[in-house]
């Protein structure tokens, strides 16, 4: 199994700037797929609050962000002190693209990504207090089960 790019979906709460059918349609497809992904209520709100999650997201390898205009997403992260590397981060724009376009691009991004390492199957890094370092994180690991 190849390493998939982390996916972050923004729900863009508070404003109706994203077409409802697009943001609902993309979420439906994500939910119906077998992709693991993260979803957040609103990247703008997170940026304004300096949400520490943005730093964690920015640090992820090759994250694919499904949100709005790439220029807006880039500088929202930057404003929160979590600059993203434009060469490694892919932003898909739900303001201008249809559900099919976003989805096709997402699939293309995932399939184009070369296998770099094998993920630990069944492992979910949960985080927790003082969990910035990998060693301090809590995990559900299938081997842990009795």
């Amino acid at each position, binding site marked *: *199994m190849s*390493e998939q790019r*982390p996916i972050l979906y923004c729900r*863009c*709460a*508070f*404003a109706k*700037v994203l077409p409802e059918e697009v943001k609902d349609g993309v979420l*439906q497809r*994500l*939910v*119906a797929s077998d*992709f*693991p*992904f*993260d*979803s*957040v*209520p*609103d*990247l*703008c*709100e997170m*940026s*304004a609050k300096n949400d520490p999650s943005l*730093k*964690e*997201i920015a640090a*992820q390898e090759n994250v694919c962000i499904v949100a*709005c*205009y*790439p*220029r*807006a997403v880039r*500088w*929202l992260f930057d*404003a929160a002190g979590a*600059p*993203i*590397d*434009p060469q490694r*981060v892919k*932003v898909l724009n739900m303001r*201008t693209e249809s559900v099919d376009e976003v989805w096709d691009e997402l699939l293309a991004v995932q399939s184009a990504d070369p296998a770099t390492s094998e*993920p*630990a199957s*069944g492992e*979910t*890094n*949960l985080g*927790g*207090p003082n969990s*910035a370092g990998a060693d301090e*994180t*809590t995990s*559900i*690991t*299938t081997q*842990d*089960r009795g």
Partner: protein
Amino acid sequence: MAAHLPQLPRVILYEGKDSQPFAAEVRQELMVKLLDRGYTVSRATERGRLENLGHEKVIVVGIFDRAMPLNSSDSVHIQDVRGQSSESILGAVESFALPREQDTAATPKRWKPWFPVIDYDRCTNCMQCLSFCLFDVYGVTKGGKIQVQNQTNCKTDCPACSRVCPEVAILFPKYKAGPINGDEINQDDLRREAMKVDISSLLGGDIYSMLRDRSEKAKSRFSKERDDDRALKERQRCLDKLKSNFDGLDIPTEVLSSLPSMDQIQAKAQRAKERAQQALEMQSSAGTSPGGEEDVSKNPPATQI
């Protein structure tokens, strides 16, 4: 920086090994409900792994085949939700959250995150935004770099400062149109900016004086009216007219009608001007470029973004 409430826990819908998948409609409903309540929601499957997002609390819900893999703790709560509806799972999630967080999530009125975002690839640190804004949204760093510092002071739906930026460097991601919403800047946008003259001189003086003057005239007409309904309509008409006169700035009526008094405007404008001047002096003495501070300039040239 925006004043904010404690971070809500992250919710993980666990569908990895040794668990059963949620029913499709439950998964979809739950995801939407949780997002609407302000939670970060992640879905774990066998296909890959989720990364730590730095939350102090995490709630894991799943339909587990066997005994729980870990005991719940103060920071990680694991719950088997076999056979439960999305509403019931939502209740379980919220019961784990602090009571204060529960109240927050249930509060329908949340701040709409409307504020300017600076594109430092374009910003020249000219301080026009700092001089222009009456609401102290902008500030400068110790190094003299323009920065958005008080997001919640920004007037919702007002993109006026982006209109006065000579470099098209101010974004409002929730604005309706480009390039203010973050859309790519095209040649027409640049041509428009090249034609932009100092807005104060264009209006024959201080833009705020002009706005205030017109607003006062509208209020004056309003005060002469005896009939409340008629007066209200008249005021609205005047404000609409005022707004249309400044259509290029796209300032909402609410902002125009809530402008401070003339004296307050002059005092604020003077303070802003002084701060801008100080920042410019600091900048010229230190040779600071807008991207020269912190890590902004470290970003390589955009390819995908």
